[in-house]
């Protein structure tokens, strides 16, 4: 089943679902012909898109609204915050081409603060699937939840088979480790897998966790990582500020735990526009580059027992 298949099935079997877009049809090209008046394209109008979605939700609908992540979360930010956040209406906002997925578009199109600003709005939850399979596993539960959601759309091919056991607020633990735990969401999951392989080959017992929903966050998994491994690594195609690194640090401090946390994130600037493979290479986000940074930190502190 594809993303479109799931949406179409929901629309056909549940009268509440509507599919919207601000003229970004990359993920839903076939739906206009298939679902008729349950599809609305508002044109290049992100603010109106969100307002219309709120209006539909007021009438009992569950609108699934699509736009480029940058313009959806930033151009329409105050509409999301005011019309969706304050009301808590079940509007589902799907941001395309987030993080490194904007590839060569340049900084205008880089949504690398989207997780931070969306999670900062009361009532709004955030789902960042690791890849297409992970997205499709979680999609129904996220769309059927009574809460508003921001979804970081991610259709990259999966590197592994994911657990079908999906709960909002529950991470997917791929492996546990006593030396290092890699905490990751979204696109960077695939690189984290290869980073883990290298770390294991280098003799480090390395855990790997796919966070799945960043809000609500799986605090238990974070605290377990802080307790059981010597170094916690957060990996995200997002600014350092307000993303997973922030969440992990907040969680650890709030619960009076202690941990060494190494962030792999974009520092305070935009990334080099290029094709995905080259972006990862240039910015140091390949599995290999991540593993090297982690090993460097491990050696620096002589964590090895």
């Amino acid at each position: 089943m594809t993303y479109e298949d799931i949406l179409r099935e929901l629309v056909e079997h549940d009268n509440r679902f509507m599919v919207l877009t601000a003229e970004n049809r990359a993920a839903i090209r076939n739906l206009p012909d298939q679902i008729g008046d349950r599809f609305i394209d508002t044109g290049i109008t992100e603010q109106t898109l969100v307002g219309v979605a709120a209006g539909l939700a007021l009438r009992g609908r569950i609108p699934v609204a699509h736009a480029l992540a940058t313009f959806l979360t930033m151009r329409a930010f105050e509409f999301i915050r005011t019309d969706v956040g304050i009301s808590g209406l079940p509007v589902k906002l799907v941001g395309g081409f987030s993080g490194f997925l904007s590839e060569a578009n340049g900084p205008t199109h880089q949504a690398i603060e989207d997780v931070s600003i969306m999670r900062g709005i009361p009532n709004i939850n955030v789902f960042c699937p690791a890849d297409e399979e992970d997205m499709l596993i979680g999609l129904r539960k996220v769309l059927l939840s009574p809460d508003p959601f921001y979804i970081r759309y991610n259709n990259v091919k999966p590197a592994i088979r994911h657990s079908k056991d999906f709960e909002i607020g529950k991470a997917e633990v791929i492996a546990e480790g006593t030396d290092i735990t890699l905490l990751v969401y979204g696109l960077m999951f695939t690189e984290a897998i290869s980073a883990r392989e290298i770390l294991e080959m280098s003799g480090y017992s390395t855990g790997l966790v796919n966070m799945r929903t960043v809000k609500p966050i799986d605090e238990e998994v974070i605290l377990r990582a802080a307790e059981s491994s010597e170094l916690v690594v957060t990996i995200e195609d997002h600014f350092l500020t307000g993303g997973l690194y922030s969440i992990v640090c907040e969680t650890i401090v709030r619960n009076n735990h202690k941990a060494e946390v190494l962030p792999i994130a974009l520092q305070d600037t935009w990334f080099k526009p290029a094709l995905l493979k080259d972006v990862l290479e240039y910015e140091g986000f390949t599995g290999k580059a991540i593993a090297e940074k982690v090993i460097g930190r491990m050696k620096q502190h002589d964590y090895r027992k």
Partner: protein
Amino acid sequence: MEQDKIQNLREIAFNVREHIIRMSGDGGCFIGASLSCADLMVYLYKQFLNVHPGNLNDPNRDYLFLSKGHDVPALYGTFAELGFIEKDRLKNHLKTNDFIYWHPNMNIPGIEFYSGSLGHSLSVAIGVAIDCKIKNQNNKVVVILGDGELNEGSIWEGALVAAAKKLDNIVAVVDRNKFQANIETEKLIPLNSITDKFEAFGWKTSSADGHDFESLERAFADLPYEQGKPSLIVADTVRGKGLPSIEAQAHRWFVNFSKEEVAELLIELRGGKKTDLTSEEIIAR
């Protein structure tokens, strides 16, 4: 419109103005904009809209979205007069034990959605109007816009989209009081002809005297003006209407009057007759 009906509307509007004036003390309110749309609110809720305390959850009711939310005292007053809320509740204005604050919120029966951030409600109304169309319902979706609010770009996005989607169940009403917060609209960002602008965006428009119930009745009589087009009515109004000392005064936007000033304004509204009553007694009456 029959004379006794007009008289009845006038009486309700007078009471709404008294409520607004009472809310202008002890913390204050946006008095000018509230007074300019008081007649419009009374006309719409009493005469035009199919919405009353008994059908607030009926999906077939008409909807009103107050996009220029700072004039919500006019709505509170109208709701108190028409039984949506207890009149006594208005005493809770700005108190933490209630939700009667400076902008509309959904905790007040009859208020359809949060507003106050300008330029939002037209798009929300479009969502509601689309759903009504899909369900073949004939309810009207009214949006009250301020003329100053028309500075917001999202209004013009919404204007394009409402026309493109042929939403003839939408009726936008501009409270044309010719002021924005601090200054006259035409001195800052001139709007000139609002009807021409919306016509160019694919709407069908008309104008009315926003303080004359018969004029409003004529404007609202034949909606939609054209099948397949959203309608817009420019209601020509006076900011602060009913209180000559406040009317069209640029600095009478947000006010917070003393008890004595509130009493004086109530006397002014009531025709200026001298009285021996104390301020408290005047306000309580």
